[in-house]
């Protein structure tokens, strides 16, 4: 069977774009810099809207990551069979490992932040600041690595 990488790429790309956009919208910058004034982008200045969108897309991204990771595992496991394009020699590229690390970092820090935002949950001030900064650093790492792989046309697997 031929892997449907194209639809996967489109879905991942769109999710990544909007989750990053809604993430940056958590900072009060889109209104200041007139971006929310562009017709159709007013929602970017509505913090509760972007917050909910960020959560919904995070659910989508986490589900998608779990699916792709397990699917890859099964595909390698059964590389001997004729249906699978992925073989034992298939490797995850170095740039992909960077993206995977950043995604894991984002998911882990993000999950802690979701828990922190529930009523009655208190994290120490240092932990909260640490989570905020780490989440931002992992985001920049992922976007940087994504830009690199985009320009250099590096694939996730080689």
């Amino acid at each position: 069977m031929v892997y449907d990488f194209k639809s996967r790429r489109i879905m991942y790309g769109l999710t990544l774009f909007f989750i990053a956009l809604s993430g940056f919208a958590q900072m009060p910058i889109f209104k200041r810099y007139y971006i929310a004034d562009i017709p159709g982008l007013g929602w970017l200045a509505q913090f509760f809207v972007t917050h909910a969108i960020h959560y919904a897309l995070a659910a989508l991204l986490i589900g998608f990551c779990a699916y792709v990771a397990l699917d890859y595992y099964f595909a390698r496991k059964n590389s001997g069979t004729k249906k699978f394009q992925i073989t034992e020699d298939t490797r995850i590229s170095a740039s992909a490992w960077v993206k995977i690390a950043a995604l894991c970092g984002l998911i882990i820090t993000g999950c802690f932040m979701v828990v922190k935002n529930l009523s009655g949950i208190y994290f120490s001030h240092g932990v909260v600041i640490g989570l905020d900064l780490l989440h931002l650093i992992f985001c920049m790492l992922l976007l940087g690595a994504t830009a690199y792989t985009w320009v250099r046309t590096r694939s996730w697997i080689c």
Partner: protein
Amino acid sequence: MRSPISRRHFLKTSFFAAGTAIAGTSIAKAATSADADKEPLVTLIDISRCIGCEECVYACQDANAHKFPEPEKPFPKMYPDRVPVEDWSDRRDVTDRLTPYNWLYIQYASATTKEGENITLTIPRRCMHCQNPPCVKLCPWGAAKQEKNGLSRIDAQICLGGSKCKDVCPWDIPQRQTGTGLYLDLLPAFAGNGVMYKCDRCYQKIKKGEQPACIAACPENVQTIGKRSDIIKMAKDLAKEKDGYIYGLDENGGTNTIYVSPVPFDQLVFETGKGKPHMHPVKDTMADGSNLAIALAIAPIAGAAAAVGKYYRQMKEEA
């Protein structure tokens, strides 16, 4: 505006000391007991007792004067031009609204009682200390914090003054002072705009087992602070006894400030606007996030199930 001859100093000697002595013991107990970790501190505000003397307002200013901003002038130019300069440093004596230098003010409300009598009520207004405060939880830098005892406060050392806390606060409580804080050391022209200020429930006093200044200074004992369960019971009993109405118990998912009024809150007529918060019903602003957290918990299971399903389908096809 603050009157030149304030009753404050006169009253201070007579009531302040007595009030602190009586109530101080209970807060000390509530704040330092093991229960303080389990239950937040809540204040009950009995509106019918307030005489509008503003002692609480001046006590708040006195107790927190060392936290007030001393902005550097001239302010750095900010881009783009739409970024508002908010400067209260020359209007520190304003007491008829919330400002960075006035974290508590007295709101005058007119109302008609059940008996048809027209009355004026005076209502101390400040941060409600929400149970799940959006100002804290949604601050992108972690500058706002909530303590285990339920109070929320903004760290003036970290706040960049983007005012998101005010935008997400259902009552627009935090107030900005331009020209102070961390943003001056970063990119003052392009990011940040000062520091946000609001009632911090006199956290430094609570830590020492003392009453917040506004509570201790009140000659009419309008406010009572204590463990959440105790205060809720007290508020409900008071409302029952006085045939009164409650605000703050369910607002924004529940707050740590509970008002009891002799008149329904939707019948109070008062000026609202900048620095003058409303008293409308408020739905839980953090509810969507809390509900979506469930979707986040299910997501990896759903993704994994889809992959496993696909695998077995393929295996079957191959067999």
